[in-house]
């Protein structure tokens, strides 16, 4: 241990004020300060700052907690408002990345469960399906978009999850139809949409292991996909590699499938 007369660094003075020094060093610094009035004044000023901050805001923690913070209510509210908003999904993604990078006490389990294998395999399958069927002129789908109710029922049954086939008319995309495909862990549902100038987007979805994950983006040479898991269903929205355009499609899809989740509960 450093002896009583060793010089005290400014860092140590801060640690002294914040109680971060080992007990014996704490004492030594206190003794040192009694012989160094200038530094003692500094320490006193820092302590006074801390006191003012506590005096100003400390009482907030003793206020009764407002009713809006009742947890069961917050959880209901979260679901009623359609769960995670698209923006919230992006923000949560930042939190996940941060936890993985900086955390020692915890890991982002959702992220590890989905990556790299789950996410990569799933989006690779989705992009393969996209590339395979998007060029198909005569038989791009098994069931035409005009039979939406039938298709919803059929694919939901085969996947073992209640699906909702998004309506993307609001962004100018018409449902061409859908088909059943093999997925990483069983059946996968595949829907195709077409825009006014013939551009095609597809949604590939299957049951997932993790209940939900952050949003991910994968870009190939000419195609790209957004991937996420929500309410135990994984989605990959694929299309031409124009991120802004694809994000608009993915966001619309997200909001619609999420609303169906809210309806269920």
């Amino acid at each position, binding site marked *: 241990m450093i002896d009583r007369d060793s010089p005290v660094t*400014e*860092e140590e003075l*801060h*640690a002294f004020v*914040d109680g*971060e020094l080992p007990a014996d060093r704490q004492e030594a610094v206190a003794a040192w300060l009694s012989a160094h009035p200038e530094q003692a004044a500094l320490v006193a*000023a*820092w302590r006074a*700052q*801390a006191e*003012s*901050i*506590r*005096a*100003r*805001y*400390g009482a*907030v*923690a*003793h*206020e009764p*907690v*407002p009713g*809006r*913070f009742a*947890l069961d209510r*917050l*959880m209901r*509210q*979260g679901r009623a408002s359609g*769960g*995670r908003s698209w923006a*919230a999904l992006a*923000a*949560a993604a*930042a*939190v*996940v990345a*941060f*936890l993985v*990078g*900086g*955390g*020692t*006490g*915890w*890991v*982002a*389990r*959702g*992220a590890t469960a989905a990556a790299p294998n789950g996410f990569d395999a799933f989006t690779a399958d989705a992009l393969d399906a996209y590339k395979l069927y998007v060029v198909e002129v005569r038989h791009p789908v098994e069931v035409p978009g005009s039979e939406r109710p039938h298709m919803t029922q059929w694919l939901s049954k085969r996947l073992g999850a209640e699906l909702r086939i998004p309506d993307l008319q609001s962004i100018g995309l018409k449902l061409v139809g859908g088909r059943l495909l093999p997925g990483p862990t069983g059946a996968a549902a595949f829907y195709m949409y077409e825009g006014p100038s013939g551009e095609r987007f597809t949604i590939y979805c299957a049951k997932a292991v*993790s*209940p*939900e994950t952050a949003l991910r983006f994968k870009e190939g040479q000419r195609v790209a996909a957004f991937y996420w898991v929500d309410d135990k269903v994984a989605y990959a929205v694929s299309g031409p590699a124009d991120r802004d355009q694809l994000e608009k499609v993915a966001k619309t899809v997200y909001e619609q499938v999420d609303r169906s989740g809210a309806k269920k509960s």
Partner: protein
Amino acid sequence: MATFGKQVEAKIPALRRYARALTRDSDIADDLVQDTLVRALRSEHLFHGGEIRSWLYTILTNLNRNRLRSLARRPLHSPLEDNDAPDLAGPEAGSRDIERALATLVEDQRNALLLVVLEGLSYREVAQVQGVPIGTVMSRLARARVQIKGFLDGERPALRRVK
């Protein structure tokens, strides 16, 4: 879930205190706390043991940073200036001074200082919340203290003169 919920619930008063000091606006602060709680409850599966307290402070700190970032894209107005009452002497003036002094800090410094002196987190915990080494936390803390001291030393005599 019951325990997780209970643990989160127990932290609400402290989160409100931290948010109030961070934003210096009770409405914004409570919105921030609410967002933090919703986010935490929906991300329970992302929490894998460890200290729930640091995790919640992390979410709140990140959300506030996002808020400030989106605010920065719009023209800023300072709520502090808007409702400035005539300056008072006594303890009232002191608490106002510290509020203004905090407002002059860089966000990362304000986070570090408040987490240490108001929330009682250790340097190690703050490092975890901010995702930086402990040395960075200490230098943020040091700069925050210098800045506040400078502000208070410069500001107080001026206020007295006005009176």
